[in-house]
């Protein structure tokens, strides 16, 4: 009946496929080259940031040492938002230009973004207990971060629920973009809501001398988070490329060790 399927998949017709697969095929080695620099930067910046944060920055006058959570909390919160925007951006690019690589990028970013959102929630909760006396309050920032986490989960769950990768990509892209419209709306809802979170963050910047070392530490950690995100996303996108393009010649050569990358 259809025993020809095995042999048929091996030889994609040359003319179209060359254009079609061009981007993943050329991007794969490029991603490989960027990988090690990103890892090195991530590790170096983390070490520098942790050193600054724990050994140079002094104890806070009002919060004591509990404020040192800031060195992961804020970078994680920032990254969770930046990654979402990047994801939505890649999805939009994919929908408009119909490039498979951009969909792969966005599915590679989603788990890391969700991870950052979770870390922001977790560290925020652990920070809230000593400062506000509660692990959780329904403040706009926290709520919006929680919603962001759910948006990530929704995107990943939807993609996991669809078997056909092409369909999964495009369906996921739609929800990611619709969600991105939602993020600023949530953000501006701060005005109409209890502003517990905002007040606390302002009090931290009262003493300028402390803020400078603290700020350095925070920025170093933020850069480390960037580097880490880039490194992991590149690694994941390479894995996704192999999974998705497994019937193409370049992946087959790669996997059997006939080319180096």
């Amino acid at each position, binding site marked *: 009946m259809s025993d020809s399927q095995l042999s048929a998949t091996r030889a994609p017709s040359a003319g179209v496929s060359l254009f079609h697969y061009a981007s993943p095929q050329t991007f794969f080695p490029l991603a490989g080259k960027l990988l090690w620099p990103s890892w090195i930067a991530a590790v170096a910046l983390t070490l520098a940031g942790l050193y600054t944060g724990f050994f140079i920055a002094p104890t806070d006058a009002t919060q004591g040492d509990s404020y040192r959570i800031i060195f992961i909390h804020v970078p994680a919160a920032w990254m969770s938002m930046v990654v979402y925007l990047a994801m939505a951006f890649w999805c939009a690019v994919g929908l408009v230009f119909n490039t498979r690589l951009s969909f792969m990028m966005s599915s590679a970013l989603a788990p890391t973004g969700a991870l950052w959102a979770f870390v922001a929630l977790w560290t925020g909760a652990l920070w809230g207990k000593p400062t506000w006396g509660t692990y959780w309050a329904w403040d706009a920032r926290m709520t919006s971060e929680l919603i962001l986490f*759910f*948006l990530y989960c929704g995107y990943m769950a*939807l993609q996991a*629920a669809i078997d056909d990768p092409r*369909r999964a990509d495009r*369906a996921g892209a*739609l929800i990611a973009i*619709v969600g991105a419209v*939602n993020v600023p709306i949530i953000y501006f809802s701060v005005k*109409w809501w209890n502003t517990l979170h905002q007040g606390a963050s302002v009090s931290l910047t009262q003493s300028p001398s402390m803020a400078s070392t603290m700020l350095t530490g925070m920025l170093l950690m933020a850069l480390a988070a960037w580097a880490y995100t880039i490194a992991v996303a590149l690694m994941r996108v390479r894995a996704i490329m192999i999974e998705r393009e497994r019937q193409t010649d370049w992946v087959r050569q790669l996997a059997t060790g006939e080319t180096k990358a």
Partner: protein
Amino acid sequence: MIGVFLSVMRRDLLLAWRRRSDMLTTLGFFLLVTSLFPLGVGPEPEQLSHIASGVMWVAALLATLLSVQRLFESDEADGTLEQMLLSVEPLAVIVLAKVCAYWLLTGLPLVVMAPLIALQFNLTPDETLIACATLLIGSPTLSLLGAVGASLTLGLRGGGALIALLVLPLYAPLLIFGAGAVDAWRAGLGVQSHFALLGACLLVALAVCPLASAAALRIAQD
């Protein structure tokens, strides 16, 4: 375009009329959920009136979630959806017509029932009016967003729960503005901004959701 809009809407309404009990049951669901709250929360009157608008909104939202997944389901199962994709008319218009019919059947009755529930929860007439008005402006947005979720999860098993995961985060701002309006009024603040925001959400949803939903349907059928 107007023609197809009207006739698709008429078709969906007729289909629902054939199953009149549906409309009753949506109302029943809304009433029951809101009546369950006093049961679960306890009967203190001040506390009840305090949470009333929140409960009404949550109930409206759940009533939508519970039913919106069926919006395209039967059309998909029996092949009508294929015919819609092949129609000469823009798919977004057909989707909009279906959403309108859906809202007339599920959203509007909730708005009409709302005063009854407000009574159960001891709201003043002013507060009742505000609560109903927020529902009137907000529930079409719920339906529109729900339609996007429904078309994204079409044909996927576990659609019910997946739709909730996809759509509830999008509902959150509506819930905040909608339920917040009564509180703001009670606190003596203006409610214009709440209504302005709900209205803006509705307009954006009206422009974006039918297109997004149509795109999702095409993807689902590929």
